[in-house]
């Protein structure tokens, strides 16, 4: 499509557990704990999670509300830091990076899709999409062009100058995906991307995400509690009370 996938991508790589050790994972959680103070005590959102997210895979993490799913995502992009354990992105320990480095990493390495879209209400569709590009130092003109291309890819041509609140939920989420893609990140993080959508719009969004993984070789890490969503993933991991309970695939 418009950008080359990661060069290390190897076909048939999925499920080959023996080989995995030789490659650096897209994201690797090593005995990660994350505790939050709650009602005066420390509540462990994650307790000793160890997980490799392989390059190019579409990994879904399933679990009920409060099982620690979102925390897992936040830790991946450095929005949150673990209480114990390590999170490695491309083999680099996030804890050893500065705030600025983590910001740059988020900007270039990750695209994030939220349940509530989290679009800027004061910006137009096109402006929302081009925002991360401009944060990364892209010129106004260049970022606008990239945004238009992405929007047309996602079927939103003609809506570029609309205010956000004139779009439907599904459209807004597609705008969010466009925004996530503008800096051509190798990893997409999606937090309940269909949680706020009807099933039809949800399906469109999930198909988008699957395509990002399968056609463009991006790593997609999605957390969800919707069983419908799990069907689109290459692999599913269940999370309960902060612990991984079963692998899937």
């Amino acid at each position, binding site marked *: 499509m418009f950008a080359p996938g990661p060069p290390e991508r190897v076909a048939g790589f999925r499920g080959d557990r023996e080989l995995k050790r030789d490659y650096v994972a897209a994201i690797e959680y090593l005995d990660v704990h994350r505790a939050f103070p709650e009602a005066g005590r420390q509540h462990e959102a994650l307790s000793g999670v160890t997980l490799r997210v392989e390059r190019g895979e579409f990994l879904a993490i399933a679990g009920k509300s409060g099982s620690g799913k979102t925390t897992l995502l936040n830790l991946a992009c450095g929005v949150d830091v673990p209480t114990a354990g390590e999170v490695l992105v491309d083999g680099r320990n996030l804890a050893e990076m500065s*705030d600025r480095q983590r910001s740059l990493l*988020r900007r270039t390495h990750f695209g994030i899709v939220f349940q509530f879209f989290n679009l800027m209400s004061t910006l137009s569709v096109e402006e929302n999409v081009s925002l991360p590009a401009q944060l990364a130092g892209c010129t*106004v003109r260049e970022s606008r062009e990239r945004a238009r291309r992405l929007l047309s890819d996602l079927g939103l041509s003609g809506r570029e100058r609309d205010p956000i609140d004139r779009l439907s939920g599904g459209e807004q989420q597609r705008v969010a995906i466009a925004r996530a893609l503008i800096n051509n990140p190798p990893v997409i993080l999606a937090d309940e991307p269909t949680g706020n959508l009807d099933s039809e719009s949800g399906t469109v969004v999930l198909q988008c995400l699957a395509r990002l993984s399968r056609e463009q070789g991006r790593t997609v890490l999605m957390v969800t509690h919707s069983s419908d969503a799990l069907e689109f993933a290459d692999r599913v991991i269940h999370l309960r009370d902060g612990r991984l309970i079963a692998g899937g695939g």
Partner: protein
Amino acid sequence: MLLFRLVNAKQLFRRPAQTGLCLLGIALGVGVVVSVDMANRGAVAALRSAVDAVAGRATHQMTAADGGLIADETLAHVLAHPGVQAAAPVVDEFLVVEALGNRPVQVLGVDPFLERPFRSLTFSTRSAETGRQVFTDLLTRPDGVVLPESLAARHDLVPENSLNAIVGARRASLRVIALYTPDAPRSDDGQPLIMDIAAAQELFGRSSGFHRIDLIAPDDAAASLAAVLGSTVIVERSDRRTNRVEDMIRSFRLNLTALSLLALLVGAFLIYNTLTFSVVQRRRQIGILRSLGVTRAQVAWLFVLEAAAFGVAGSILGLGLGAVLSHYTLAAVGGTVSSLFAPVTAEDAALTWPTVTKALSLGLATSLVAAAVPAWEAARIEPRIALGRTVIDERLMRWSPGFALAGIVLLGGAAVLVGLPVPSLWPGFLSAFAIAVGFALLTPTLALWLVGVLSVLFAGVAGVVALLGVRNISASFSRTAPAIAALMVSLAMVMGVGLMVRSFRLSLVDWIGATIRADVYVSPVGNVAGRNDAILPPEVIEAVRRLPEVEAVDTLRRRSIVIGGQRVNVLSANFAVLSNRARYLFTAGSRDEAIRRLLSSDAVIVSETFSRRSGLTLGDTLTLDTAAGPATFEIAGVYRDYTTDGGVVMMDRSAYERWWQDTDLNNAAAYLRAGADAEAAAAALRSALGSRYQLIIRSNAALRAEILRVFDRTFRVTSVLQFLTMFIAVVGILAALLALLLERTRELATLRSLGMTMTQLRGMLFVESATMGIVAAAVGTAAGIALAYVLVTVINVRSFGWTIDFRLSAAVIAGAWILALSSAMVATLYPAWRLGRMSLAAAMRED
């Protein structure tokens, strides 16, 4: 009222920074009002107690109509007049005493016997024996002086101490013979030194006469006494004298009060802001309450009560703050009063109930008015869990044209008020307020418009980050608009007052250039404000004349007389000397013609202030009480004068001496030959006369500098007020930014998660804040110029009676812009710091 506890009390503490800033805003606003009120009261009390301390228990006071002394013989007539219960002559002077802080102190020369009904003169002495000795000493020692106890205590003085004093241009040695306990011990402000009348007369170089006769008499007896003595004396009730002294500083006080109310207005925006924020924050909570059956009225009440709580708490804090601030404002006001009107010792005023009541009611009323819109907004929230964007922002945007219209109407009203041909100050103040509020109402529309312009600009050039910053302003318009308006009002005040002061100063500089033309000025040290009548010894003037560099000498004689119940200075100068040297700025009449008439006939020129006050102008005649009885003078011109707002009537020396039989002189001004050095001539005079006389000998440059120094000191009070108002506005911007930040926590976290660095985030905040600053400064510039125009052309003219040329000063406006932008920048520091510490993960979870 479980409901109120549930919603409000906790809410106040949930956002300590918000609550704190709001309280600080009210406290500062109220504090400024309180401190100005206390300073005003303090200054009035000091003046009043000085007057009262001097007046004693007199019901009436008699003064000479010609502004001179009352002759000894008059006293016998007064004492013999039927109905006069008591009468006492008073010599009322000022001298400078080294041991009393080297400042002017009032000294009364009294006859201890005749004075007895007026003041008890209780001497605190060690024994009855020394008490008798004190009495004899008082009557017989020409250097004996009695000090008020507290004054003596403050300066560690006891009986038998010697005092070095400066009387006019001479040095004198005095001896403390006793201390006295003032009759009204509530304050020792302005309690005078007491001397025997003979000693006082001699100390001030006279052998007879006194400044006034205090009377205890019923009104009819006083009136018949005045009738019997004819037009040579003026008999007036003592309270009138006190009132006149208060009148003197009335305009000054009113101006300060008006400025302080502007500060409160700025504070009101803060309350509005905080409450609006609070409504926005609690949309969900209020929606739940409404679904549980809470009525609209109850919801509105919640916010009214919250505003009342803010108002009361802020006002109480403000009282304390004001009491502390008043220490400084009072010093500034006291200094101004001392240098312009009369020497006073303004001591720290105590908080009085009227001040407390005023502060609490002002604070409360302001809070409630500011709460009206947010409370109404809260009441409109529907009974469901409200989500999405608040309606108030949209509504405010929809309303802004209406606001703008109201603002334009107000500004029109201001223009009409300015044009009203009435002497009262109120139209001026009202129009100043109308300008402030009118422009505040225009601010939302102008802000939206400017945000639109900047959006287009930034969208094309600066990119989305800047755009976000600008758009945030309209997105949270109900919070940003008041903050902008608050900053705008305070900037308008800074610019308005700044431009007025600047215009005044430039006019003063022009005036100095035209009027202060002599090279060397000589005056006695003992001259004090309001009583510049210390005499320059003739030998001094002779010495000035003899100086080889001196080409001509002008001398000045000042006399204070009453015209139509107003005290007016009659000045006489040598117009033959002045004619081709000084250039009085005439506002009516021509200079050459005026001088010709001054020199050839009984003509006077009057100051603009006098002309405005009396309604007399060029060609009118003026009757003055002279030593030879009432005499009529023609007004040959009206000239500009900034020396006193009391009014000046000026005439040639020859006319003055002919009518008043008075050859005393107060000042001398020497014009040097071309090429002579003024500083050298001043130094020569100093070394020739300095050891024998206490003189102030100044070169032209030094005198000009001194005048400007006094001017600058006078406006120090306003600078303090400007600074405080500006401070409140910065607090307002800070509070607004902080509120917006808290409100947009999730949005900001999203931006961060999209890869925005802290620097970029700060940049966005700054663009947002700077835009607010720019909008405020832009509107504020217009408002400030309008305000300055009203101050210069209406308030100043009506307060003081003099004309100031209105001038726009780029420096003042640029200064205000810099102030606005730097304030905006400063206001982002704390919110940015807070952002840096924010936990993104936690923020993402926010509503």
